[in-house]
């Protein structure tokens, strides 16, 4: 129980700060196809009976150690040339999937409240729509508060099914940053994934942790999908293939995804000031020896010395609220003054 309390002035002794912690998230194609089990029936890939999307884990999902890393699905808008094509499989689900994501991420427009389409630029003016897309929905475990703008990079194989990485395309959001290069929508900020050689490959929603890739990335690939008996372009696959089959084909062609995430940590810093003539005494029972201050070594003229190990924060009723421990005791005597920063993260 302290005898005296040092009052903290909220105007001069308290500050709030925000810290951004980041993590580098490298996701290689190795773990999404072929490492755990035999492609396409990998043990770390979960398909559902509803068939609307596929979940990818970083380890066989039956292990309690596995972490969910992203979901994959495909879709197209009902105004797409693929809509209504003969022999289509899961067409309604693909259209619904597109509509759902566009509603949540882009919202509605116009007097008729029509759903917006994903676009390959930052204008949302209806030009350059991406009507046939692959959705990569990253786990919140990986994206945390948001994907760091300007850090997203994806490399996909565009060559033949047998050797997909004989030709690759890499798209980055290098134009995006905290100061520009993004557009704010109902789903948060988004930036454009592009490369100087291959143009626009899609867009990335930073807060939502969502990547939307246009099917035109594989426009020149004649065997985007190949199950040994049937070869399909991506458009053919989006029409005639199942969603999970298209997700499998994407996994087969994913070489690398890398981004940095961001976690915001809010802090309050309390500056605890120990002036030269205060806190030079201790209530520790060992501080006294036969009623004399032990550290004076029997000479009353020696200055008192204390070693600060702990700082207690009390409320206005002098009730202890929190305790801060120093990593090592700090010497305090009348010849020095200390200001100790106590940081409270939340």
């Amino acid at each position, binding site marked *: 129980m302290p005898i005296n309390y040092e009052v903290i002035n909220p105007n001069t002794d308290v500050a709030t700060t925000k810290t951004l912690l980041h993590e580098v998230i*490298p996701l290689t194609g190795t773990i999404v196809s072929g490492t755990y089990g035999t492609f396409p029936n990998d043990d770390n890939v979960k398909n559902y009976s509803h068939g609307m999307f596929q979940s990818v884990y970083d380890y066989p999902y039956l292990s309690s150690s596995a972490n969910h890393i992203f979901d994959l699905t495909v879709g197209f808008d009902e105004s797409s040339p693929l809509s209504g094509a003969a022999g289509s499989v899961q067409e309604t689900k693909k259209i619904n999937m597109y509509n759902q994501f566009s509603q949540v991420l882009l919202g509605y427009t116009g007097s008729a409240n029509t759903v917006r389409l994903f676009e390959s630029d930052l204008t949302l003016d209806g030009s350059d729509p991406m009507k046939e897309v692959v959705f990569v929905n990253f786990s919140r475990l990986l994206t945390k508060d948001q994907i760091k703008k300007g850090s997203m990079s994806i490399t996909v194989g565009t060559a033949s099914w047998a050797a997909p990485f004989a030709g690759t395309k890499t798209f980055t959001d290098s134009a995006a940053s905290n100061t520009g290069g993004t557009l704010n929508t109902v789903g948060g900020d988004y930036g454009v994934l592009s490369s100087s050689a291959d143009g626009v490959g899609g867009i990335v929603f930073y807060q939502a942790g969502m990547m939307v890739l246009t099917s035109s990335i594989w426009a020149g690939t004649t065997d985007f999908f190949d199950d040994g008996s049937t070869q399909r372009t991506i458009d053919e696959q989006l029409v005639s293939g199942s969603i999970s089959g298209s997700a499998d084909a994407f996994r087969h062609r994913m070489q690398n995804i*890398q981004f940095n995430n961001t976690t915001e940590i809010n802090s309050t810093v309390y500056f605890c000031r120990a002036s030269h003539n205060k806190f030079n005494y201790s209530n520790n029972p060992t501080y006294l020896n036969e009623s004399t201050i032990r550290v004076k070594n029997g000479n009353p003229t020696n200055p008192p010395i204390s070693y600060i190990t702990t700082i207690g924060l009390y409320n206005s009723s002098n009730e202890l609220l929190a305790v801060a421990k120093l990593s*090592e005791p700090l010497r305090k005597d009348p010849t020095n003054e200390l200001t100790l920063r106590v940081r409270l993260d939340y």
Partner: protein
Amino acid sequence: MRANPHSNFLIYSSSVYYDHRPIESGSFSDDILSASGGISLFEYNIDKQGTTGFDESDPTQRTEKVETTGLNPPIIPYVNKGSNKQFLKASPRTREKIQTVSDDYVLMSQGPLTGSSYSMSASITRELMETAGGKTTNTVGASSWEVPNYRHYYSLRNSLDFYSTRSPHYAVSNPDWNKDEQDINLISVPKIFYGTRIKPGSLSLKFYITGTLVGELQDTKYNGELVQVGPEGSTGSGSVAGVAMYEEGFVLLTGSWDLTEGVAYDFDSSTTGSWTRFACGANDSVNCSTSASFDFSFKGHTETQVLTMFAHARRGEVNYSNNPTFLEYGQRKVEISSSNLYIENDKQKIKNTVSSSYAGFDAPFERQVYISRIALYDDDKKLIGIATLSNPVLKKEAQDLSFKLKLDI
């Protein structure tokens, strides 16, 4: 809410097994969690292989240009150094005669980033301190000073004496012994395993040779003394082989009697199996005889503050839903909408969700809702929490319902 989490560590052949969990090997790593015998913080980097780092061409001006190697490189954390003195956990410190602190982060200039690594893990650690109080004299020029050989022991000496009121066996020295001159086997238990303190009376240390129990210690007196309780008639049975520091999470073993009845086994610096060789191989970089195995278990003590709230849905209240499907499908929502008027349709019918017991018969309408979630708001009507029910609860107009909400802090 008080809880007593149980922990068990099995030590065999220089490996530690926590709560009998096997060490799982994956496609890239022999230990997918990289936390053999313990807990991995976040359990993030599973079965990783390779490295992730930053362009190190100029360490003082690292940029976010990431460089990776291997087929499955790990996730790493980093921060950009700003002017706000926020940083990751302090980097290794160097200590000399006068304590100095060398913090890489502090020495960095502002602007560049600094990284760290996962996995961060916790497990028990064993440290054999032979002649625990020993010191080494360091000499530089004309000055010389003594440095303790085992700093961990010296940091515990005061606490040991403090607890001597609990049991005389804690005392560093008395007429029968001087711990400074003894070999002490220190077993450190990280706080994450036990919480506030190890529960007195819950400790059990078992020493096996070729699968046969040759000695067991328990704190049967609840005072920290570790008494050999078995097997019956074993060497040293009934003797105190060490003490436990419940609050600090340490076990100090000094019992030096031979538990292996003269049979020699390799316990690194000794061939005698005594309590000072207990847990040999537990993260101590020592290889011991594969004939020996050790079991170390205890209960912890945790206290969690729980806030209990009651949310009342009284009769006549909470009988309406904003869910669009609460109303019958196909009704006009807006009665009139013009440049001067906007009138909603106030005659919209509520969908009758009352279940009928008979086919082809609609039960009479009743006002009822299914409550699936309870939201908590502050004084400013800002949403601060949501409690979701495991199953929706039917609330009829004439019913009173109370929901008990518990928030662990």
